[in-house]
């Protein structure tokens, strides 16, 4: 009888064992004890892992956020403090410089006079040199006489004169137009009488041809 019962139990256990395997292997322990804290299934483990990951990443983001916040606050505070310190130093420096204001203003007054002097002296030229230059050009023919010079600037002048013939005046005109220091020659007027030919030229010279910046300093 006992043997038969044992055989029945074996058969039962053999019958139930594959059923458990088929459903979930964790339903019962092998020792047939009651499991109050059941073992988690694979899907449960995955879900739990997801939750843990979510929590960890949330904590990490909060920590990172806190660190960033602290860095920004420190950066901003330090910058503000630096600015305030620099401002107070600048105010001190400004006060010191204000004490030198009369000296600076005196320097400015002298400078403005220096600039005026430089400006005036840069526009100076030697009328004597210009006069002698044109007289020399006119000396190719002793019949050419220059009578009136008007100096407008270091590059502009006009002059009047007379010659014995149109041919002489034409040659003089040609020489003027070929001169390297003369930019433009305009025969302003020409009149012929019995013995003389009167002429007037408007001359534009090249820049700095006769400028003498050192005139004032000499």
């Amino acid at each position: 009888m006992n043997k038969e019962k044992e055989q029945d139990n074996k058969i039962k256990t053999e019958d139930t064992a594959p059923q458990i395997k088929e459903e979930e292997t964790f339903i019962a322990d092998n020792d047939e004890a009651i499991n109050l804290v059941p073992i988690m299934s694979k899907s449960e483990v995955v879900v739990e892992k997801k939750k843990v990951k979510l929590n960890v990443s949330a904590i990490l983001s909060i920590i990172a956020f806190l660190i960033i916040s602290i860095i920004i606050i420190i950066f901003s505070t330090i910058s503000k403090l630096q600015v305030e310190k620099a401002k107070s130093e600048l105010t001190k420096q400004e006060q010191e410089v204000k004490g030198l204001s009369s000296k600076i203003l005196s320097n400015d007054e002298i400078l403005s006079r220096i600039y005026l002097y430089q400006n005036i002296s840069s526009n100076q030229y030697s009328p004597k040199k210009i006069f002698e230059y044109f007289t020399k050009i006119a000396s190719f023919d002793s019949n050419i006489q220059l009578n009136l010079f008007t100096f407008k600037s270091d590059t502009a002048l006009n002059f009047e004169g007379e010659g014995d013939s149109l041919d002489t005046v034409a040659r003089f005109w040609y020489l003027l137009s070929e001169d390297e220091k003369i930019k433009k020659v305009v025969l302003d007027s020409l009149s012929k009488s019995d013995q003389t030919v009167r002429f007037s030229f408007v001359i534009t010279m090249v820049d700095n041809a006769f400028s003498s910046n050192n005139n004032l300093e000499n």
Partner: protein
Amino acid sequence: MVPKTNKKNLEGVSDRIKSTKLKIKDLVIPIVIAIMLILITIFLFVPMLTKAFEYRNQLKSIKSKQDQLRTLKTNVEKLSDEQLTKDLIEVKSVIPRTLKVSSFLFYIDELAKQKNLTADSLSAGDVNIHTAEEEQDGKYKGVNGPLAYYGSLENVLSFLDSFYTSSPYIVSPKNISLEKSADRWEVKVNLTGFYIVEEESVSFNMYKPFKAYTDFPNVIETLREKAKRLNSEVH
């Protein structure tokens, strides 16, 4: 047949599976926190950072101002107080605040006499003229008057050549004309003397670029010589 204990286990497990499933309510708190963080970032951190960068720029500008003031102070301190005052008085005597044609006409007339020229007409008058410089900053002014002398060509040319150096004031001839009549030459000129109008209330700007007047030693030397001449003739 499933044993009783196993059945209970199965029910417990089933409940547990249900309760451990990731539900929407599990995500509410992280989402709310994320939104809060984003809002804090936008409304707190961005303005804070912007302000911080503004402070940095401000600091940079203050530092550059400090450097400028430091350089200015060093350069100004290099100038000797005594020499500066002396130079200012001398330079102001050469280029005064006001000028009359009579002030510089004397020197031109003296020069003409030295060159044996005869005064043809001296219709000098204090006429304010406008120069290009004046138009720019309104500081430079000049008075002019027409003069005429005659003499030999050599003397007239020599007179013209010594023109600039003859006056201790800053003068400039305009519209010079040289005309031959019989055996003599006549020179006509519009003489302009320059002066500087001083502002009544001078504004002091310490951040204006500074240049020491001692950087122009040649000009200063010339002006000193002119002042010396002016003072010796006055005394």
